[in-house]
């Protein structure tokens, strides 16, 4: 858990790139990334979740049924700058691998940090979706990312 966590609870209106929005509960409490696990998900080309592994379900706080069929941006924490996700989508749209540090929002409003890698899934030359694999980041990388993202919001 981050030493800066206050445990404060609030509500934030999160606006997504597609024009939709939702009022999300935000709790200033970090859930530590579990040792040795990889969070794995896949989406279709438009970002709709098609696969979620057990670690994803446990860390996000959602059930599998709640995750499958919704946009991956359900995990977006309001502290994450939109420019970070633009960079992600611009990179994978070129068929390249994207890697970065991401603060994710849990269903209960708490958060967890990940080192995320996203790659396009190409089958017979066609883009069929994306695979995202998240792993445990170091505390120093989280601190660096927090400082950087504040300047980008």
């Amino acid at each position, binding site marked *: 858990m981050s030493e800066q966590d206050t445990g404060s609870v609030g509500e934030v209106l999160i606006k997504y790139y597609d024009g939709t929005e939702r009022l999300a509960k935000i709790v200033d409490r970090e859930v530590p*990334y579990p040792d040795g*696990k990889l969070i794995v998900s896949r989406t279709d080309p438009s970002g709709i979740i098609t696969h979620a592994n057990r670690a994803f379900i446990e860390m996000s706080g959602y059930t599998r049924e709640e995750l499958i069929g919704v946009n991956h941006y359900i995990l977006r924490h309001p502290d994450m700058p939109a420019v970070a996700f633009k960079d992600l989508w611009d990179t994978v749209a070129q068929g390249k691998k994207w890697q970065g540090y991401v603060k994710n929002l849990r269903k209960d409003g708490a958060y967890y940090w990940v*080192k995320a890698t996203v790659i396009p*899934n190409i089958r017979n030359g066609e883009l069929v979706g994306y*695979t*995202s694999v998240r*792993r*445990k980041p170091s*505390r120093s990388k989280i601190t660096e990312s927090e400082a950087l993202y504040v300047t980008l919001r």
Partner: protein
Amino acid sequence: MTLNLSVSPDFPPTHLSGWFIFNTWLQRQLNTGVHLELYDSFDAQREDIRNGKIDLIYANPYDASMLVRELGFKVLVRPRNRADETVIAARHDDPRSCVEDLGAGINIATTADPDVHTMGMIMLESADLDKTNVSFQECDSYVLVAKALLNGQADAGFFLKDGYDELSELVRHKMKMLVSSQISVVHHTLVAGPRMQEHAELLTERLLGMEEDPKGRDVLKSMGLDGWDVMEDEQTEFMIDLIDTLID
């Protein structure tokens, strides 16, 4: 025409004879000659694969990517309940108790096993450790990784979990796990090359039936396996995509 079978060099030595028994079983099923070629070196095996010398291979997940996407091999089956997991261990009396306790400058005992080494390095990232601030001692087996740890030549060791579990109880009691991966979807596969394709359907059918047949069960037991599960193309692609995210 004699076909060539090979096995990724990371298989446990206790199952060496099992692969010879499997090779005999295989020849009977296919009614054709099959030669079992074993390697100590991952690089030497890869060179022979690239030169078209191997027709059927029990491949580690890292090599499965090259076999399927570059060389046109096809995954037939995977071993049941045999995910490839990685353990980072230290000496039991070492005061460091988790990965984050490890610092720059440590020496790591590892093997040439690409999956275990890659996953070991990924699990060190949370301690800000990478190839630029640690040193390595490459060992030929997990027994020698344990020896390097116990002799004080290394601070931490990378093990295939199955390899760690097969160490003697005496050796394991002198070590402790700092972390063990829990990925569950990365595993070895039995992969058929172009010359094996004509036998692929029959071979898959016989492999899946092994556990139903007393002789087949004995062969499986000698290899330390419970049975085979069919591996659909998309399951293979999914595993390879996942591994691609882990490789820089």
